[in-house]
């Protein structure tokens, strides 16, 4: 579990599973620096996305990671990979 890298494709898959995709939002586009808000995900969708990541990767995110700290896919991917690295060491 813990030697996995968390990628943008992993995030796309989990977003779709947890909350679907807004009409007019192309998750396949270059979304790394587009805010979750602009992508159409409100706080509850992000809470559910965070819970899915935690379950699949066996890590724990802070409650406000997705709602205040990691507001874009790039920031979230970085945070998740830091947690994965910490869990490995």
């Amino acid at each position: 579990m813990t030697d996995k890298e968390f990628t943008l494709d992993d995030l796309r898959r989990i977003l779709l599973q947890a909350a679907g995709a807004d009409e007019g939002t192309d998750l396949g586009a270059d979304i790394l620096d587009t805010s979750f808000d602009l992508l159409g995900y409100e706080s509850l969708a992000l809470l559910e996305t965070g819970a899915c990541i935690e379950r699949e990767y066996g890590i724990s995110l802070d409650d406000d990671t997705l709602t205040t700290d990691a507001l874009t896919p790039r920031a979230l991917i970085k945070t998740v990979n830091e947690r994965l690295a910490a869990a490995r060491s």
Partner: protein
Amino acid sequence: MTGASAPVAVTGLGVAAPNGLGAADYWAATRGGKSGIGRITRFDPSGYPAQLAGEIPGFDAAEHLPSRLLPQTDRVTRLALAAADWALADAGVAPESFDPLDMGVVTASHAGGFEFGQGELQKLWARGSQFVSAYQSFAWFYAVNSGQISIRHGMKGPSGVVVSDQAGGLDALAQARRQVRKGTPLIVTGALDASVCPWGWVAQLASGRMSTSAEPTRAYLPFDRDARGYVPGEGGALLVLEPADAARARGARVLGEIAGYGATIDPAPGSGRPSTLRTAIRVALDDAGAAPGDVDVVFADGAGVPELDRTEAEAVSEVFGSGRVAVTVPKSMTGRLYSGAAPLDVACALLAMRAGVIPPTVHTDPCPEYDLDLVLYQARPAELRTALVVARGHGGFNSAMVVRAGE
């Protein structure tokens, strides 16, 4: 025109029923006496005393809703969102052309999103709390249909939910009419219920009023001497209400008018005092400025439980005279849809007025003691201007609504 007695028009219908998805299919089936009651397919009912339901076949939510809404909605909310879309399209309304504060949503609910809740409880017990969906926070809730319709169409005016079992369907329409009269130009209103899932089923069985017959044509027999309880179903209807003059001014087709409403609560069981249903009917007639002789058809509640059928038959006979008004129970083809039943009956009444026929009550061989002019076996041609819809909820709720044909 607003004000306490301003006419309020129905301009759109959205229907999801066990015998028809969409108003056109529902009406074709209902006028033809086609029942949607059968053995449950949504789960294996073999371990339960009641095994029949009115299920809606062929509803694929992904065909009707964006993927964003699927992980966060119960089946009942998906049906309600589709029905709201159909009702607005039927009314010729583009919500984006209204001020958000000029549109509201008032629904009724009997159970909320039960199947969603069941799934999350199963995750909680089998896998742990971290597996429970964040969307459980609202997806189960009674007000969820109002909330999701409001969000989807940007309707931020007066909104809410009414919870009074089967009577709630009329209570919601009455609240919507109140809000239109107080100045809101458009309200989406009505109800759908859908909890044909094991958890929902055991909750419904607790009433002790469900039929345990396994024969779809013998299980739910309102006003029959062999009445033995009811068969539940899923679905209902949503309506678009507008001030009648504004609707005409925008060129809308007026399907009819919500002309009168009355509601009462029955005395406590064992008090020896009679049901107040007749009062609810009289209040609704007075509110509509209608005499009993003006009513062309009664869409009865049709509990299918002998003592409740008797109470309703007595109330109808007392208000209208024995056998003096045509009575029908189209829900004999759908099962009882809880809050969804009465809005579906109101939609049915409006469709019946347009077609000039009264849809039948199926499967019932009426008990002669009740002395009702039940429309049986097949539709009866009739010129219909005024209909009365009756809805009674568990716990003593009685509601009655007078509906008039559009011009």
